[in-house]
């Protein structure tokens, strides 16, 4: 103000005073804006990272819970089914068997054999549920066709699958992950949708494998999927997400344009995505 008061008569002095003041205010304002804007951007990014971590924690918990459930199921199958069967077979083949008459001996051995056959079948079923042999030996196409035939064979629902372009198989671990995702999706459709048919199609486009499932029952759209994925429930969906994350794949839930069907599309890259490309994207 000292400067302004001392030079009120000169218009150049006034311009000089106001110009200097204006320049300083502008510069300080700009610097403050840059500082606060950068802080805002960094806070936003930190929040995003925090959310990402939370999401990963939920997925990890889901996969651990799923693993535990699978172990419990296995333990229950072995303890409740295989255990009693083998114990019964043991009863038939006890030490007293040699003291019995031949007819009783033969009957006991026959009963024990029957029980052992049942046990073998049971263990085979458990083993198949862990790793389908069709998938291992003949690939995803055969395993999916097999699964759909079994579903269709039950007569409850009409299930069909068609692989348009699957001459070259994906890597075995990729196939297993995709198969598990498909199993979970089909299981969900059977449990919750009440649809009359399920139709699966497969195709390759731009080095990505696309698998689409159509059904006419009650279904999910993307927003429902994301909501369930973030909530504490929806273990199966979280499992789908975590498996697809490992594959660097994507999943999209939508309703058909005709509003009659629900579509679920899985997109999985044929080759493994390099880590640096993932971070860049």
């Amino acid at each position: 103000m000292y400067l302004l008061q001392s030079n009120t008569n000169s218009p150049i002095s006034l311009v000089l005073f106001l110009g200097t003041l204006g320049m300083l205010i502008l510069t300080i304002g700009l610097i403050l804006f840059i500082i606060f804007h950068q802080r805002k951007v960094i806070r936003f990014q930190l929040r995003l990272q925090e959310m990402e971590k939370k999401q990963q924690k939920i997925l990890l918990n889901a996969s651990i819970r799923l693993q535990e459930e699978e172990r419990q199921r296995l333990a229950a199958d072995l303890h409740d089914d295989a255990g009693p069967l083998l114990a019964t077979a043991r009863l038939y083949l006890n030490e007293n068997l040699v003291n019995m008459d031949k007819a009783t001996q033969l009957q006991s051995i026959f009963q024990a054999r029957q029980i052992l056959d049942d046990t073998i079948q049971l263990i085979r079923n458990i083993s198949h549920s862990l790793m389908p042999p069709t998938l291992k030996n003949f690939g995803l196409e055969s395993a999916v066709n097999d699964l759909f035939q079994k579903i269709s064979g039950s007569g409850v629902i009409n299930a069909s699958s068609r692989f348009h372009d699957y001459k070259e198989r994906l890597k075995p671990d990729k196939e297993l992950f995709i198969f598990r995702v498909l199993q979970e999706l089909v299981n969900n459709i059977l449990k919750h949708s009440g649809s009359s048919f399920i139709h699966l199609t497969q195709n390759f486009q731009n080095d990505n494998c696309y698998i689409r499932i159509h059904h006419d029952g009650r279904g999910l759209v993307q927003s429902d999927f994301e909501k369930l994925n973030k909530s504490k429930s929806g273990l199966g969906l979280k499992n789908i997400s975590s498996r697809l994350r490992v594959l660097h794949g994507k999943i999209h839930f939508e309703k058909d344009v005709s509003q009659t069907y629900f579509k679920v599309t899985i997109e999985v890259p044929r080759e493994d995505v390099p880590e640096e490309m993932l971070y860049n994207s």
Partner: protein
Amino acid sequence: MRILFGYSIIIFLINYLISKDSNNVFLYKLFTFVEAIAFIAFLFFQLVNRSAKRIVIVAGLFFVLLSIFISFIFSGIHLIDSVQIGVETIIILIFSFYYMYERMNDTSTLYVYSTFSFWIVTGMVLYLAGSFFIYIFADSLPKAEVDKYWVVTNVLSILKNIFFTIGIIVNSKPPRKIPPSDFEFSSLN
């Protein structure tokens, strides 16, 4: 940092010579020239964008040519050369704000004020923006009136030096230690 060190020594010498011979036009022109070149060089090394670096070189060359041209054509007319200082200020302000824009978009550094260059550039920008109009009008006003305003330039110069000092302090802080990636836990046993 070397640029800043060189700039400080040369500017100190020129100021000392000006205090001995305050009417030497060459010393004032040299002061502006050294200041501009030091600031332009500093910005050149701090900018990341290659195109921007090229433009800084072009602007620097333009300033050098302009300074030579002005020195030969209008030598000895005015003590303070408004054109030279005006061009210097505009060039440095443009690239300083571009530097700030680069830093604003760079989220690799946690906060912009944790880098030493931010403090140096802030000091430069405040000093040049604040004294811009005073230097521009220095030729048009009588010397007695210019002297009244000179206090603003001195205050801004002190402020610039304070910011430069903060920059040096920030730069001298030891970098954050990063744990070794191949740390062997067996060595703890």
